[in-house]
């Protein structure tokens, strides 16, 4: 009897630890606390502005419960420019506990432009991915389902949050 109880404890501990590892692959430990997410108004050349605006719409129309809105005084900012690093995009999230307090997204023209055969789609793919980080989604989830968070997705064609991503965001709000 005693042995059975001890075995149960060990089994439970193993499942709990293993389970939390899998969970972390799909989700970050933080996300924006409300479903309406303000972003400071931005102004870029049309080749960039149009797909950037489309990226917000891609999330807003996905049925993921979240809405990104542009306002003039939001602490959440988007910057597109040329950076001396190898990332397509980066999301810098200031976090308190499990809540995103504010975020800054950078889109790197130095890496996006040379790799894009369809610039508009590529910008959307990177921007939609970075916005995904603000709503709990982690990088490169372990799944066979298509995901906008996957590193190996085709950025020249995948511009929308996928069903896998949408369901994951919905589970958090």
């Amino acid at each position, binding site marked *: 009897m005693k042995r059975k109880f001890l075995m149960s*404890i060990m089994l439970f501990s193993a499942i709990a630890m293993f389970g939390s590892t899998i969970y972390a692959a799909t989700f970050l430990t933080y996300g924006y606390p409300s479903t309406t997410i303000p972003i400071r108004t931005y102004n870029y050349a049309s080749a960039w502005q149009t797909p950037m605006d489309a990226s917000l719409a891609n999330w807003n129309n996905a049925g993921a419960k979240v809405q990104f809105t542009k306002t003039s005084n939001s602490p959440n900012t988007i910057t597109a420019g*040329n950076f001396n*690093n*190898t990332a397509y995009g980066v999301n810098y999230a200031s976090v308190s*506990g499990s809540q995103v307090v504010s975020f800054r997204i950078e889109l790197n023209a130095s890496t996006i432009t040379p790799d894009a055969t369809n610039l508009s789609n590529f910008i959307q793919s990177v921007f939609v991915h970075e916005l995904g980080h603000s709503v709990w989604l982690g990088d490169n989830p372990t799944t066979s389902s298509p995901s906008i968070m996957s590193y190996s997705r085709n950025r020249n064609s995948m511009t929308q949050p996928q069903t896998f991503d949408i369901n994951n965001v919905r589970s958090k709000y």
Partner: protein
Amino acid sequence: MNKKRVLTLLLSSIFILSAVGCSSVTSTASPSDAPLTIIASEDYPSYASISDLSERANTIVKGSVIETRAQALNDIVQATDAANENELNIASDPGGEPSSFDKIYTIHTIQVAESYKGGYTAGEHIEVKQLGGQLGNTEIINDDNLKLIPTKDYVLFLETYEDTPASLLNSVQSLYVIKPAAKSNQPGQQQSQSEVIVSANPENDLTLQLEDLQEIQNEQKKQ
């Protein structure tokens, strides 16, 4: 151990595991001098083969870390520079007014032991930056990055820049550890002199071999 004590132990385990599993990587906000923690998540290119990786890298070296420091760095290329470099390509200049932001990078000075591609030679130093680090009360956490350790020898696939340290092409496929060949315990079996190369990141599905590096080096010599 009686049943009650075992149950108490079980409940304690559940509580501790839940607390650990649900805790954030950042400290919760505390009054006044609370540290500022920023978590960085990057989206970067993934390469289908070592050949693609080496083609994209402008510098490939073997070396070891001799110094590491944290430094605030604004890595944006000024609009005028970018415009000059890409005069004919409007797609590469988003326009607008990109806002300035000092990031915290961890910068490693690497002593080059062997060069496979690029302008560096053995004995020279090259600086390599990784996003993340702490300066004062501000910390940028980048969980994707692998820590470079001074005692190890690495092969690095890099992109270099004129006025900022080089970057790894990505944090999954661009860093490899050189390991000495395992000693054979079989009597009479010849000890292999070859080193073994393993990826620094277990998620990496590419395999780098000494022959690949030799091939890259030969290609470089032809040019």
